[in-house]
């Protein structure tokens, strides 16, 4: 197995890392840079440019230069160039292809596998699109991991004792804050929040604007009208910002910045850190609300945080670090290069997956936040996977038809903690048809839930009789924020009593239904062999029970109706004993005994529809 590279596929910049000699190492690109701009361009001659060269010609070719494509992953957005249409996955694949080629060049060997990071709030569709982009680029994506998780891995927190940490990611164009619980090999994302349009450029612009206004006041000239001067100002602004991360004042020296009738003019100003903080105060403040909201959604106070990690180049700014400290009361961890931390974490995960020395043995596992069920008879949500189960996980259960000769079953997948399907969130629906005509309860439909390590849910239904199978991959926005999850759990608790009662009613009704069905069958088969009085008793009880069932609407059964059904069922079971005995006799005679064991279990299955092995599915008739 070759090396598995770790890729931070960012909105503005991407970075690649790999384990080498037991340590994660950032791989420089073909231009010698440790990060690559996430920009793709198609030149007029049809040449494809990726990274720095693409960025350098963006302004001459804006129609055919694509940046920040990450913002469109998982959507139907398409880019049309030269009459050809590209999906976001295809554009991202081009970036990945270059990263792959540069990695191969550095390592001197082929690279076919990778770990790619995504924001923690990415839903299934966005994750799947990222995986697809890797595939198109010729990479087998072994794992999609969350960016805050990768950052935590880079700091080695996966092997620490369990703790809650906050990741403050202020980078190229977006601000993301995540709160995750990590330790002992397991990780859970508790909350995510942020500002999708806040980044380093915004801070540069504040300085640029200040320079323009100061110069205008001093010299009466508006430099913003001079494109060349503006360009120099922008570069100087970015340089000044960077210098203020280590010095408390910086000098901005731009001789011959412009020419007037009086002669050339120079710009020579001093910018203090205090002034810079003042100019960018509102931007820094914008990070406060998402941090507070994330803490709230996670249901914790900042004192419960174990660590705070800084990610993204802009966290080098002292005022950003100070803000983090004041919001959380914690000194943030910044020993890992903030531009590279996520890629390094991805590289470490890649190392773990390929068994590289120094990566550690334990893989991080996510947990599924909410239970997953399918809808069965009476609208009940029958749970297949409990919440907080570590993924990957797979669970199967056998279901059956609700009516005779039912040809198809509708599988309705829901997510949530409520007892009834309609109170939960629908994730998807599909139909399995071609079921051979049979009595209700006879066909065996195996329903399997498969959640892979990337959190992508696959549900399949297989008719064990015909071998026919249908499945869906859940692509609906199934990522719920932690506040939604908490709400779902809380509501479930509140409604628990109510739901329980209603479920009892439904179960009773289903059981009674089942008994009616069995009794009617038995009457048909051996009713004539029965004593006339006994037969009459059975028929009478049968009618009473059927009426009781019909009087009780599935949706709104009253206690009395439930009791009537239960009583009616008991009575019928008693009077039908002799009838069923006759059925056994017949079966026993045919099989020469020794089959009583099988018969008994068969009867049990028929009587109770809440048996573990077979559950009557409320599958709609075709």
């Amino acid at each position, binding site marked *: 197995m070759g090396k598995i590279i770790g890729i931070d596929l960012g909105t503005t910049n991407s970075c690649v890392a790999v384990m080498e000699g037991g340590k994660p190492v950032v791989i420089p690109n073909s231009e010698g840079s440790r990060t690559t701009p996430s920009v793709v361009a198609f030149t*007029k001659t049809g040449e494809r440019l990726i990274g720095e060269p*693409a960025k*350098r*010609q963006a*302004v*001459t070719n804006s129609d055919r230069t694509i940046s920040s494509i990450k913002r469109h992953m998982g959507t139907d957005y398409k880019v049309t160039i030269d009459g050809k249409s590209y999906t976001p996955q295809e554009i991202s694949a081009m970036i990945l292809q270059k990263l792959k080629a540069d990695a191969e060049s550095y390592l001197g060997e082929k690279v076919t596998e990778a770990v790619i990071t995504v924001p923690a709030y990415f839903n299934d569709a966005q994750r799947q699109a990222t995986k697809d982009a890797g595939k198109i680029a010729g990479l087998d994506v072994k794992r999609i991991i969350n960016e805050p998780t990768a950052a935590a891995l880079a700091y080695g927190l996966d092997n620490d004792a369990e703790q809650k940490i906050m990741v403050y990611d202020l980078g190229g164009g977006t601000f993301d804050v995540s709160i995750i619980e990590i330790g002992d090999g397991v990780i859970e994302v508790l909350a995510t929040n942020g500002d999708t349009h806040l980044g380093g450029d915004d801070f540069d612009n504040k300085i640029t604007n200040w320079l323009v206004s100061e110069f205008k006041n001093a010299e009466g000239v508006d430099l913003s009208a001079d494109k060349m001067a503006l*360009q120099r100002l922008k570069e100087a602004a970015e340089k000044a910002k960077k210098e203020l991360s280590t010095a408390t004042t910086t000098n901005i020296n731009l*001789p011959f910045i412009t020419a007037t009738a009086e002669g*050339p003019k120079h710009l020579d100003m001093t910018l203090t850190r205090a002034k810079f903080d003042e100019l960018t105060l509102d931007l820094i403040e914008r990070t406060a609300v998402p941090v507070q909201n994330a803490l709230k959604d996670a249901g914790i106070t900042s004192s419960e945080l174990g660590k705070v990690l800084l990610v993204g180049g802009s966290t080098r700014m002292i005022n950003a670090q100070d803000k983090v400290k004041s919001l959380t009361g914690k000194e943030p961890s910044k020993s890992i290069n903030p531009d590279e931390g996520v890629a390094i974490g991805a590289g470490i995960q890649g190392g773990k997956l390929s068994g590289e020395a120094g990566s550690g043995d334990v893989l991080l596992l996510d947990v599924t936040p909410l239970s997953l069920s399918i809808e069965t008879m009476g609208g009940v949500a029958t749970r297949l996977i409990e919440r907080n189960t570590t993924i990957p996980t797979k669970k199967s259960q056998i279901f059956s038809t609700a009516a005779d000769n039912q040809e198809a079953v509708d599988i309705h997948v829901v997510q949530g903690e409520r007892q009834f399907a309609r109170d939960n969130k629908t994730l998807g629906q599909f139909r399995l048809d071609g079921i051979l005509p049979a009595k209700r309860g006879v066909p065996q439909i195996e329903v399997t839930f498969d959640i892979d390590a990337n959190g992508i849910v696959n549900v399949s239904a297989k008719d064990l009789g015909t071998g026919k199978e249908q499945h869906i991959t859940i692509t609906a926005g199934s990522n719920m924020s932690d506040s939604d999850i908490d709400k779902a759990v809380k509501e479930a608790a509140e409604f628990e009593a109510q739901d329980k009662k209603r479920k009892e009613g439904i179960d009773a009704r289903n059981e009674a239904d089942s008994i009616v069905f069995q009794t009617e069958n038995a009457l048909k088969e051996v009713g004539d062999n029965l004593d006339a009085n006994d037969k009459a008793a059975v028929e009478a009880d049968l009618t009473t029970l059927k009426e009781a069932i019909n009087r009780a609407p599935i949706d709104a059964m009253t206690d009395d109706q439930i009791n009537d059904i239960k009583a009616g069922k008991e009575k019928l079971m008693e009077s039908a004993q002799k009838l069923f005995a006759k059925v056994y006799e017949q079966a026993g005679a045919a099989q020469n005994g020794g089959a009583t064991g099988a018969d008994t279990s068969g009867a049990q299955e028929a009587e109770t529809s809440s048996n573990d092995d077979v559950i009557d599915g409320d599958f709609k008739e075709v």
Partner: protein
Amino acid sequence: MKKKKTTMFDMGARSMAEKLLPVVDNFERAMLAAPADGEGKAFAEGITMIYNQMTKTLEDLGVKAIDCVGKEFDPNFHNAVMHIEDENLGENVVAEELLKGYMYKDTVLRHSMVKVAN
């Protein structure tokens, strides 16, 4: 081993040369604003001589300016910051050089900052 030393030396040299470029830029700007005649002329001439010495020294060290005006725009050497339509100029050519680009030996030290036409 020798190759590694050469590579490391080059990396160090590149880093230093890159930092000197803004000083060279400002010298050029000063030259553009130099008075043609009158009192400051002798002084301006002196500055020009220093500038020429600096350029020669840099060239000897392997730092050379990138000749770009009128040439076809190539994002491997040029960084386009402005775009204009001009029928007098060819397709995708460098119309104006806003900041000189430099090569160090055979790699780009700083891309030319240019205005591109069409």
